[in-house]
């Protein structure tokens, strides 16, 4: 609270302002929460009620058949596991590589400005989609799991954030003391810098993890083998494409040839879409909620010193 220092009787204008402000925020919160709430209640309602538009504020005719359809969908499940794998390995690699480079860039050494430039330049100028596509083809990275893990491994923006954090929050005296005691850069990095960088590591985990979990475009461009596709690319086919005929709908195609299963699937499909939104979004939101305290702290620390 910025102005809790002095208590004074509120004027009429200020009270009015507070009321208007509260109403504003209630409306904003409603606009943000309602769509999310609707997805959750639609996912646990009966398909017929959702199609008829009877679901508004509370689940109608509670049922879990949407989730059954999602968990019965082989491709969706496999892509879910793929995404978990890509996200965990990719994020771990990214955080380690970024922290190493960020520490090095926070110290003084010859050639630092030049190396800095090598990184920063890529933020402003890139080869573009097509040359990158062709070069990755030449390197034999197309359609490989390796590509899904190492592409976009280092985000220069995150690297700069981490570097600024380290150089502002870890005193140079610590380094001098460690050197006196016989440490080198490696031991100092592992035993002093990493334990003191909890906040920034948490922030990096969220940035990298969420970016990887939510990325569909990389796989769309590079992956042809359907068994390697991540969740978001499969989701795109299931929910984010205009479906003109049922055969293009991922939730139906799994049942092709099975007439009875097909009619049932059409009924379920709508609710299943809501369910797949829930199960794909929950991990990212949970990660955010878990790391949220670090997050706010990190931002505040940076702002105070900056």
């Amino acid at each position, binding site marked *: 609270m910025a102005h809790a220092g002095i208590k004074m009787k509120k004027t009429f*204008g200020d009270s009015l302002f507070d009321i208007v*402000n509260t109403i504003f925020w209630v409306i904003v919160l409603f606009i943000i929460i309602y769509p999310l709430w609707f997805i959750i209640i639609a996912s646990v309602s009966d398909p017929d009620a959702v199609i008829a538009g009877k679901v508004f504020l509370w689940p109608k005719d509670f049922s879990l058949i949407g989730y059954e359809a999602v968990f019965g969908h082989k491709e969706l499940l496999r892509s879910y596991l793929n995404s978990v794998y890509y996200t965990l390995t990719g994020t771990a690699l990214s955080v380690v590589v970024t922290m190493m480079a960020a520490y090095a860039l926070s110290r003084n*050494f*010859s050639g630092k400005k030049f190396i800095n430039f090598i990184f920063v330049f890529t933020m402003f*100028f890139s080869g573009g*989609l097509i*040359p990158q596509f062709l070069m990755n083809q030449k390197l034999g990275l197309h359609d490989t799991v390796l590509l899904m893990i190492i592409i976009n*491994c280092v985000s220069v923006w995150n690297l700069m954030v981490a570097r600024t954090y380290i150089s502002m929050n870890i005193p140079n005296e610590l380094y001098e003391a460690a050197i006196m005691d016989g440490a080198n850069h490696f031991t100092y990095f592992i035993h002093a810098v990493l334990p003191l960088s909890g906040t920034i590591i948490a922030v990096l985990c969220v940035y990298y993890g969420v970016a990887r979990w939510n990325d569909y475009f990389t796989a769309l461009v590079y992956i042809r083998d359907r068994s390697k596709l991540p969740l978001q690319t499969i989701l795109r086919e299931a929910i984010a494409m205009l479906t003109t005929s049922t055969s293009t709908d991922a939730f139906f195609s799994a049942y092709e040839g099975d007439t009875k299963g097909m009619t049932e699937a059409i009924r379920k499909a709508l609710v299943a879409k809501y369910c797949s939104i829930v199960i794909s979004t929950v991990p990212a939101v949970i990660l955010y909620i878990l790391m949220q305290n670090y997050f706010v702290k990190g931002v505040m620390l940076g702002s105070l010193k900056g």
Partner: protein
Amino acid sequence: MLLLIVYKIFDNIHWYTSMLIFSCEASLSLDYLYYCKVKLKCNQIGLPLGNLNNQLSPLFFERNDNGMILKDASMERSAKTSLIQRISLAVKRDWQLYVLLLPALGFIFVFCYLPLYGIQISFRDYKAVLGITGSPWVGLKNFRDFFNAYYFKRLLSNTFLLNLYGLLWGFPVPIIMAILLNQIEWPRFKKFTQTIIYVPHFISTVVMAGILYLFLSPDSGIVNTLIKTLGGKPVHFMIEPGWFRTLFIASDIWQHAGWNTILYIAALTGIDPELYEAATIDGATKLQKIRHIDIPHLVPIVVMMLILSCGSLLVSNTDKALLMQTPGNMVKSDIIGVYVYEMGLSKAQFSYTAAIGLFINVINFIMIISVNWISKRLGETSLF
């Protein structure tokens, strides 16, 4: 913090350009060429280089002091020692730091600098069998093709207008939200609000587009159900081109406006509380405090952000536009990024689309640099 980083980045660029000019001058000087020649000779004879560096340098400096470029002697000297000696010295001293940097540099090299080498295909007629270097040169043909293409104007204006409207509608929202959030007096409500407004940022683009398709579906979507109960006719939101920009920008604001308040909230938190206390004692109302304390504090960062986003008015949000594009709304949703993806990867017109990409990248680069120049000028003249 972010602002500081941005400043640092631009400072570095400035520094680099001056260094580049300096090293060019140094390498062009005759003395340096002479030095290289001598070294090369010794290499050919087979003398050990390690010792030679020490023995050669004084010899070389003597010649330099008696030679023609006397006035710049000290500058030349430092430039020359930096070339071989300083590198070996630096490697000896800082090799551990270089090792720590190596993985990151490797990834950047493979995914950012190798594609720069691949840019040459935009000046060639790329054929997969001939490879990148084997394909014939065609000069600026691909660029001319794009400028004369039927869709050129449409692509450019679609991309520009989508970003411009997005900026006009989307830019003020986080600022207003940050100011009003700062005025909430009930700490728990404030914390709760702050937590909630960040949440949509973590929803993926695919899910965002999926939500639009589901909610706006003409037969089962909640929006059209509402329209029907109110007596209206269902609207085909995702097919009618007139709705594309509205939906694109509105969903962007819904998703990211809350998150974008972080920067402004950080700036507001940095304000000295004494200012508010003094204002309260003087009988200022909340609106007056916003007008005379909050807004002046936000102006520098707002100007900075505005200028920066002006620099990216031709950047395409390919991910989202690709998801929201339907055969119906092509007239408005066809933006450069999507066109490059469709033509390049679905129709394999690699050289043509690489040229488009290069053209847009160069324009963006020029815009960023000039915008940065403007902001520097503004920064020096100080706004208040």
